[in-house]
């Protein structure tokens, strides 16, 4: 069986299994699925089972780019101003501070490790440490969603969600800045764009693209035409960003945010994005696993540092941020533990980095993202429930 066909068959089977399996895992063990697709991808990839060759996987590069853009749009769709203005300044301040502290701690540790342990030159160590900091400081919202489904909402869950969404946004901005600052040389007349101009170009693709798409849609309400137009817009925006070596996720976030705040059909669009994105995510997870290859650098020390530091940095950052900003009413004292699971965003970012030709330590970063997701993500609901004090409610009820 060819690699491409196997991949398609796997996604079909995985998609069917996910419907039954994810909910069952959630009900029975209170864990979330997804990591198994990564493992499956690694096992099938060129460095384990060799069922999928590197060529097979790279044939799906446009599909991966579309998947990344889609992830971005799904994040952007969460950024509705109507809802954002209801988030208190205190909660937002804590979220920003928590992300900044966690990212700085991971950046510093990784930079020192990469320079002292791996002897990487500064021009290579700096972007790698920055990307590692972004990967290490993001938080999954899936745990919050699962806990909310079972126990209902509470102020801690709201704070965790605010922190996760803020972190995702800040992480994507930081990632785009890294891509712009260390952009591969481009030979255009009269001169290549500067890093600031690359960032401006990324902003323009997302914002102008989003605005033009808003104009394009007008009052369209037919679901089929919405699907056609939405697909066209996401593909165009993601393709444009990837084409010039920027992040399709970042432009996707801007497009999603524009639509979430301006389009009259916003709720229908949101349903479409989330519904059609599910198999894309599974496929991208398998492809991420299949794209994994052993790191070109000695991997144990940086990987161990990253994996161990990640929860400590997040927890510590949450404690410091709460101390600085004051604990919002109703938020549990140990809420920082709910931020442990990284979610799938670091995987998408590491994949984005891996696809760029000549990106330094791409395999090392992908390995870090895969390992931390496999280690922490499944238990995300348990972390969130415990950190929000809801486990005691359950025990008390019982």
């Amino acid at each position: 069986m060819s690699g491409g066909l196997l991949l398609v068959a796997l996604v079909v089977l995985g998609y069917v299994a996910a419907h039954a399996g994810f909910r069952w895992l959630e009900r029975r063990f209170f864990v979330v699925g997804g990591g198994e697709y990564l493992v499956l991808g690694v096992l099938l990839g060129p460095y384990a089972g060799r069922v999928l060759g590197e060529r097979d996987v790279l044939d799906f590069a446009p599909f991966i780019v579309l998947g990344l853009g889609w992830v971005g749009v799904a994040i952007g769709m969460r950024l509705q101003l109507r809802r954002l203005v209801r988030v208190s300044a205190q909660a937002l301040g804590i979220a920003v501070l928590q992300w900044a502290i966690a990212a700085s701690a991971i950046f510093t540790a990784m930079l020192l490790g990469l320079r002292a342990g791996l002897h990487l030159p500064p021009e290579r160590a700096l972007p790698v440490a920055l990307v590692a900091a972004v990967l290490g400081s993001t938080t999954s919202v899936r745990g919050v969603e699962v806990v909310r489904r079972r126990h209902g909402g509470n102020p801690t869950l709201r704070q965790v969600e605010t922190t996760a969404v803020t972190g995702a946004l800040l992480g994507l901005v930081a990632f785009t800045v890294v891509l712009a600052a260390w952009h591969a040389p481009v030979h255009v007349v009269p001169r290549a764009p500067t890093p600031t101009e690359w960032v401006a170009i990324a902003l323009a693709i997302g914002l102008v693209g989003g605005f033009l798409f808003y104009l394009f849609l007008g009052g369209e309400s037919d679901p089929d035409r919405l699907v056609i137009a939405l697909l066209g817009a996401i593909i165009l925006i993601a393709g444009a960003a990837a084409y010039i070596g920027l992040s399709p996720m970042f432009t996707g976030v801007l497009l999603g945010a524009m639509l979430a705040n301006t389009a009259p059909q916003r709720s229908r669009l949101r349903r479409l994005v989330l519904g059609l994105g599910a198999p894309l995510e599974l496929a991208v997870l398998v492809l991420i696993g299949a794209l994994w290859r052993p790191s070109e650098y000695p991997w144990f020390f940086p990987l161990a540092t990253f994996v161990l530091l990640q929860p400590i940095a997040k927890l510590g950052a949450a404690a410091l941020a709460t101390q600085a900003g004051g604990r919002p009413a109703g938020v549990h004292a140990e809420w920082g533990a709910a931020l442990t699971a990284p979610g799938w965003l670091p995987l998408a970012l590491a994949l984005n980095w891996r696809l760029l030709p000549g990106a330094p330590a791409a395999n090392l970063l992908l390995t870090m993202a895969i390992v931390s997701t496999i280690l922490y993500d499944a238990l995300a609901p348990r972390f969130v429930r415990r950190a929000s004090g809801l486990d005691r409610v359950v025990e008390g009820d019982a």
Partner: protein
Amino acid sequence: MRRVVTLALLLGGMRLILPLGSQVPGAEALLVFGFLILAAYTAGELVVQVGVPKIIGYLVAGLLFGPSVLGVVSTAATLALKPVGTVAIAFIAYLAGAELKWEELRRTGLRLLQVTGTELLVCFAVVGAVLLALAPWVPFLRALEPAPRLAAAAVFASIAVIHSPAVTMAMLSETGARGRVATTALGVVLLADLLVVPGFSVVLAGARGVLGGAAGAPSLWLTAWEVVGAIPIGVLLGVLVALYLRHVGREPVVFAALIAVLGMGLAEQLHVELLLLLLVAGFVSENLAAHRGDPTLREPMERSAAPVLVVFFALAGAKLELAELLALWPVVLPIAAARIGGIWLGTRLGARWAGLEPAPSRLMWTGLVSQAGVAIGLVTIAAESFPDLGAAMRSLLLGVVAVNEAIGPLVFRWGLQRAGELVPGAAAARGPAHAH
């Protein structure tokens, strides 16, 4: 107008971005793909305002932005987007199969076979005869001796008789037409598709004996397997789809897209005919599901297919080579006219033999004029089989396909209108994949 302006601005933006270079493999194809969806969609919406089928709008958008005119879609990008065309054929085939009802087939199958068989044979004979008559002006025939000339003309004619289920299905979807002309034309197109592939294989094998084939050209056994092997695999896939619909049934739109892609992969890997595989799968799954009273996959499949079909037709337009068409038009036009004449005569004779009602007898030919992907696929096989003649044969056939592709939807629309089967206002409201 608002969409045209938006599109022009998007095009301007793309022009600014393109010199900044490609970083990720396949990203340019993706960029072009996105633009083409929006451009073709806009063109479709525009032309429908003046009573022209949307498909023509998609084709025009493809032609306009393709390598022949503006060059926004490069030849490399059209090649990179080839899988989109294959997925589109998978969607079309599944939807075509889903249209076939077991009960109806049992009732009208023999009559359809009579009409289709007669139409194909008459059209084959007429096109072959005209081609031989024009041989001194036909580039790939003029230097051949009588026997090889006859063989080459037969190969060409066996491809020229092919119709386009894609266009017929899409026209019926767009117009919402229901009636004897619509259903008979669809039945003939689908049945013809089952017959032409083995027919072509037989002609090709015979021609190889006369003309001498290229080493490594597909053997008769392989071609036979492509047709016969597709049936059990299609049945299996259809049963699996029916089982999913019965026991899981969630998010069918996404599942439909996955099935189309899976079918494509299976056909490629197992070397079976994609069209037939998905046609059988659609037929089996829909009839099984309908028999048990389960939900079917037809409507979700239409939803998934919509954007893919827009690009499929736009790509077909982008692949039209204007320069070649203009150079060959003195030969292309008589052959295209002969083909239409052959279809008309064949359907009239076939309908008389089968005892069809007057309306389909007179007008069903209008649904058989269009040609697209399958014909192009088969001429590629012919070109590989006869490298000396192939390129010239391909150019001429692409010219004929271009004419039929352009006028086919218009003729069919006229036919449906004459038969009183058009649903007023349906064209404006429905997309290309919306079957009735």
